[in-house]
C-alpha cells in the first residue's frame, strides 16, 4: 500500500497540492518577516487575514469583480496594519498583547460583518486557474508549478522580491538597522517610526492578500474563522525560517507538503490513525524548529518599542 504513494500521479498530486496549500502561509509569513526584521512582532496576522478574506469575498460577492475584491482586501489589510503600527510604534504598546487584540478584533469583526451583510453560506466565482503559456505544457513540471491561479504565482514571486528588498536595497538596510539597533539608526537620521509604520503596513497588505487568497481564489467561500488559526502558523514559519525569505519559503513548503502528504496517506487507505496523520505537519514543524533554533539570532530589537533616549 505504501508503494502506491510513489506512483507518479500521486507524487504529482502531493506536490501540486503542497504548492497550492503554501500560498496563504507565504503571503502572511513574508509580510510578517518584513515587520519583524524592523523590530515589530505582529501577532494580529490571523485577524488581518480574516478581515482581508471577508472584505475581498464581500466585494466579489456583491460586484463579481475579482480585482476589486483583491484591492479592497489589500486596503483593509493596510488599514489593519496601520492600526497595529499606531498601537505598537506610536503608542509604544506591548506588541504581543496588542497583536492579540488586533487578532480578536479581526476575528469578531469579520464574523459580525459576515452575519450582517451576507448571513448565509454563499460561494463566489474566484480567480480561475491560469496555466502559464508554454511553461504549463512541460510534462510533470508544468502541472506541478505552472497550472495554478494568479494568487498562487504571486505568493512565490513575493519571496525573491522580499529577499531583494531586505538584502539589496537601501530601504532593506534601513529596515534591518531599525530592527537590530534602532538607537544607532536613529542617530544616523533614519526615522525608526516611519520604517516600522511602512513594514507593518505592508505586512498588513500581504496578510489581507493571504486572506483573500483563501476566500476568492482557493476556497471561494467565507465562514466564521475561515483561516482557522493559519495566521499563527505563518508567524511560527517566520521564526522557523530565521527571518530570511528563502527559509520562510522552505518552511512553508515543508509544512504544506507534509499536510498534503498526510491527506494522500489517508485517501490511499494507508492504515495510519487519522489523529496521528493530521498531527504530522505540526509535529514535524516543531521538531525542525527546535533543531534549527540555534541557527540564527532574532532581530535584536524585536518586540522592543523604540523611545529616543534623553
Amino acid at each position: 500500500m505504501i508503494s502506491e504513494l510513489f506512483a507518479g500521479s500521486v507524487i504529482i498530486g502531493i506536490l501540486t497540492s503542497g504548492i497550492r496549500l503554501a500560498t496563504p502561509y507565504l503571503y502572511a509569513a513574508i509580510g510578517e518577516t518584513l515587520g519583524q526584521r524592523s523590530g515589530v512582532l505582529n501577532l494580529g496576522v490571523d485577524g488581518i487575514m480574516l478581515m482581508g478574506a471577508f472584505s475581498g469575498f464581500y466585494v466579489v460577492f456583491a460586484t463579481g469583480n475579482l480585482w476589486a475584491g483583491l484591492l479592497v482586501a489589500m486596503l483593509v489589510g493596510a488599514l489593519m496594519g496601520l492600526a497595529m503600527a499606531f498601537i505598537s510604534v506610536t503608542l509604544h504598546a506591548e506588541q504581543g498583547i496588542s497583536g492579540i487584540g488586533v487578532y480578536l478584533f479581526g476575528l469578531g469583526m469579520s464574523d459580525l460583518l459576515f452575519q450582517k451583510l451576507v448571513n448565509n453560506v454563499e460561494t463566489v466565482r474566484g480567480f480561475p486557474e491560469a496555466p502559464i503559456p508554454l511553461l504549463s505544457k512541460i510534462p510533470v513540471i508544468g502541472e506541478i508549478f505552472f497550472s495554478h491561479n494568479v494568487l498562487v504565482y504571486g505568493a512565490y514571486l513575493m519571496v525573491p522580491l522580499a529577499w531583494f528588498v531586505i538584502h539589496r536595497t537601501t530601504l532593506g538596510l534601513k529596515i534591518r538597522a531599525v530592527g537590530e539597533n534602532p538607537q544607532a539608526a536613529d542617530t544616523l537620521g533614519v526615522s525608526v517610526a516611519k520604517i516600522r509604520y511602512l513594514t507593518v503596513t505592508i505586512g498588513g497588505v500581504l496578510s489581507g492578500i493571504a486572506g483573500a487568497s483563501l476566500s476568492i481564489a482557493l476556497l471561494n467561500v467565507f465562514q466564521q474563522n475561515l483561516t482557522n488559526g493559519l495566521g499563527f502558523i505563518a508567524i511560527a514559519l517566520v521564526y522557523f525560517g530565521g527571518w530570511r525569505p528563502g527559509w520562510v519559503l522552505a518552511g512553508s513548503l515543508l509544512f504544506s507538503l507534509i499536510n498534503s502528504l498526510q491527506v494522500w496517506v489517508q485517501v490511499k487507505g494507508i492504515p495510519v490513525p487519522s489523529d496521528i496523520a493530521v498531527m504530522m505537519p505540526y509535529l514535524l514543524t516543531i521538531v525542525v524548529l527546535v533543531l534549527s533554533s540555534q541557527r540564527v539570532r532574532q532581530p535584536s530589537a524585536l518586540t522592543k518599542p523604540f523611545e529616543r533616549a534623553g
Partner: protein
Amino acid sequence: MKNKIIFLFLLVFALALAACGGSTGGGDTGTFRVAVVMPSAINDLAFSQSMYDALIKIQTEMGGAEKFEIAYSDNMFVVEDAAAAIRDYATQGYNLIIAHGSQYGASLQEIAPDFPETSFAWGTAGDTFGLPNVFSYEALSQQGGYVNGVVAAALSQSGTLGVVGPIEVGDAKLYVDGFIAGAKAQNASIQVNVNYIGSFSDVALASEAAQTHADAGADVMTGSAQMVVGAIGVAEERGILWFGTQSNQASLAPSIVVASQVYDWTVVVNDIIAKIKSGTLGGEAYALSLENAGLLIEFNSDYNVPADVKDLAEKTIQGIKDGSITVNVGG
C-alpha cells in the same frame, strides 16, 4: 435622566424575568420557552442549522412566538462560553435548554443538578448522566449514510468515491461508516477513499482533501460537518457529484448535489416538550432514524436522478425502515 429611565426599564425587565422564572415548574404559563446553545452559525447548512430549523418549524406549528419562545446563542465554539450561556438561560427560567453539541456534555452534567426545575437536552449523545432533568438525543446518521452510499455507488462511473470527514467521532463517523457500508453493498468492488481532516472548521484543508479525492479518481463525494463547504466548492468546480448530510446542501451547488440526509429534530423536540408539559423533565435518550422520520433523504430537484436509481434509493430507505436491511455500523 435617560440613564435612569434605562435603569428603571432594566429593573422592571429583570423583575419580570424573575417572576417568569418562579413559575416554570408548572409549565402552564402559556408560553413555552426554549433556549438553545450551538457550536456554529444557525445558517451553517449543517449541524446547528438542523436544530434551528426544527425549532422554527415547531414555533410555526404551535402558533408563533407567544406560544413558543426561542432564544439562541450560536457560534459557541468555546465550551466555557457555552457553559456560561447555558447557566444564564437556566437562571432566566427557560423551560427547556438545549445544549446542541456533544462537547457541552461535561458542562451540562455540572449545571443541570443546580436547576432541578429546568429541563435540559443535549446531543448528539446517548447519555443522560442518570439525571432526572436531562434528555439526550442522537442521530442514527449511518442510516442516511447507507442510503447515500448506495445511490453514490450506483451513480459512480469511475468506481471511486471520496469522503471528506471532520474528526473520527460521533455522528460524523457513523455517517461515514454507513456510507461505506452502503456503497459496498451496492457494488462490492467499489473503492471508497476516506479522509478525516482533524477539524470541524478547517475549510482550507477540507477543500484540499476534496482536490486530493478528485486527483485520486473519485467522481462522487460526500462529507460531514460545517467545513465541507470547502469541499463542495471543489466538487462543483471539477464536476463531481456530492451527497450532503445534516442539512440540505443543494443550495450551495445546485448542479452537483444529488441528495442530502436531513436531520429533522422536530420529532425529538416535540416529544420532549410533551414530556415536560406532563411533568417529566428528563431521563430519556432519543435517536433520529429513517423510521421515526427524524432522518429524511431529500433529493435535489435541480439534479436529474435516473428513475431506476431513485427507485433503488426508495427501496433502500424502505428496507432500513422495515428492518430487511441492517446497517451494521456503530451501535
